């Protein structure tokens, strides 16, 4: 177990790790590598921590998702579709906000703490850990799953380049502890 600030790291994972290809598709999500990456890296991290679902004590585990640009591929697709006078597919309705895939992870693992998505203005890991520390100190959660994800600016969802190509990737860290009063 390592220590990050006031928090202990219970498990950590990345996607890609050596040998990884594209993350598995997630039912209900299309076009973009963003939701599958979040789901895959969270699954790997939580599996390392707990072995199997659901997470013990999951009701007080928060999810903090940090991404400066968000789901670039979905946003670009919607923008182009709307600009052309078309109708975006209904799946993009919920896919267009990062909360949705965070909710997918929460439902799968029984994580009932706060769900917070941030766009960092500085170091993503530091901002994510700061948010997790605040939530734990404030008392709405005992643990936090931190997910850091960025898509490469030219990641078009996998049609033109493999998802997980350089510049696109995610890290998940399960954190515990803090200095709650």
């Amino acid at each position: 177990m390592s220590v990050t600030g006031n928090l202990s790291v219970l498990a950590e994972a990345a996607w890609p790790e050596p040998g990884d290809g594209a993350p598995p598709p997630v039912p209900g999500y299309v076009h973009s590598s963003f939701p599958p990456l979040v789901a895959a890296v969270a699954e790997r991290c939580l599996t390392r921590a707990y072995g199997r679902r659901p997470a013990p004590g999951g009701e007080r585990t928060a999810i903090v998702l940090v991404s400066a640009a968000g789901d670039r591929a979905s946003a670009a697709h919607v923008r182009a579709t709307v600009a052309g006078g078309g109708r975006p597919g209904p799946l993009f309705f919920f896919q267009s906000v990062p909360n949705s895939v965070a909710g997918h992870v929460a439902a799968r693992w029984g994580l009932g703490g706060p769900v917070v998505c941030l766009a960092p203005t500085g170091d993503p890991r530091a901002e994510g850990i700061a948010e997790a520390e605040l939530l734990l100190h404030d008392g709405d959660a005992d643990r936090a799953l931190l997910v850091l994800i960025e898509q490469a600016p030219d990641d078009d969802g996998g049609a033109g380049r493999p998802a997980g190509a350089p510049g696109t990737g995610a890290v998940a860290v399960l954190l515990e502890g803090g200095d709650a009063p």
Partner: protein
Amino acid sequence: MAEPATVQLTGVDASSAFGRGTDAQLAGVLAGDPAFRPVDRFDTTPRRVDAAATLPDAGGLADELAEAVDAACRAAGLDARRRVGTALLLAVHGGAHVPALTTALAARTGLTGPTRAYTTACVSASSAVADAAALIRRGDVDRAVVAAGYLVEPDQYALFDAGRALATDGAVRPFSAGRTGLLLGDGVAAVVLESRAVARETVADLLGWGRAGDAFHPCQPEPGGRGLARAVTAALRRAGLPAEAIGYVNANATGTGHSDAAEAAALRTALGAAAARVPVSSTKALHGHALEASGLLELVVTVLALRHGKLPVNAGWLGPDPACPLDVVRDAPRPATTRYALSLNAAFGGADTALLVGAA
């Protein structure tokens, strides 16, 4: 009784389809006339629905946010010197532009403290308020500005239309029989939160807050409202208040069938017997759903209504829904009987928040 508030709202500002500034918001919600009109900001020809609540002379989001922050700071008596070291927590729709928007807003408004940008859908602003309060309570900062903005634009409009989330009859009818969905609305707001030690003005006390998750589904609320109930319970606990003390709930209710019913269940769980007696309305039926900014616009409206002593109506009411057995404020504003109110928000991902304020 609650202990003296650690965190106070000392300056507020908001703009919506009702106009600019707090007077316009209060007049708009108490008049009870929904602000939805056909959309003339962009072409809705390809969409199923043509209605939203927009501010006719709205500028760009960056300019509107800066105006709101300046107005809230002026109301709180924050000159340039007192803005130094103040944190800025911004709630907006996500995208590659957000980090730069946040740092530029902080620089433009002279807020030199920590910055944080929330892109957590419809609980973005309320989460930012809760975090600002937590930062102040922990002693990280004495003062924070929370700003939030959403201006109705073609992409989100098209997505909500494609998701069949928009009301098909031109009206938002929270908790009502016959409700068909939500309608979007402009919302730009800013609030100054300060520790009691440094506050010079007081608009309201931020007495409690809570955040929780449903752990249920990517985009559907848990039918029993368990997550939202835990958020309300946490807010009451922080405030040190019993459910019976709450005199008004500005509900999240969007006018959506299963979502409003889940919220009613959450209120019954969290407030017990008091849930049947506390006046409830959702001001989204008046100013529309401002998405990432909704929590802040609704908090400002709630505080203004409490201070004025009148609770806004739940517009669009057609008749009771057995799944929502609440005391919904209908027909005309109702006198406020206590100084305490809850403002609730919920979002995709099962994210839930509750903010508990006390009128100063």
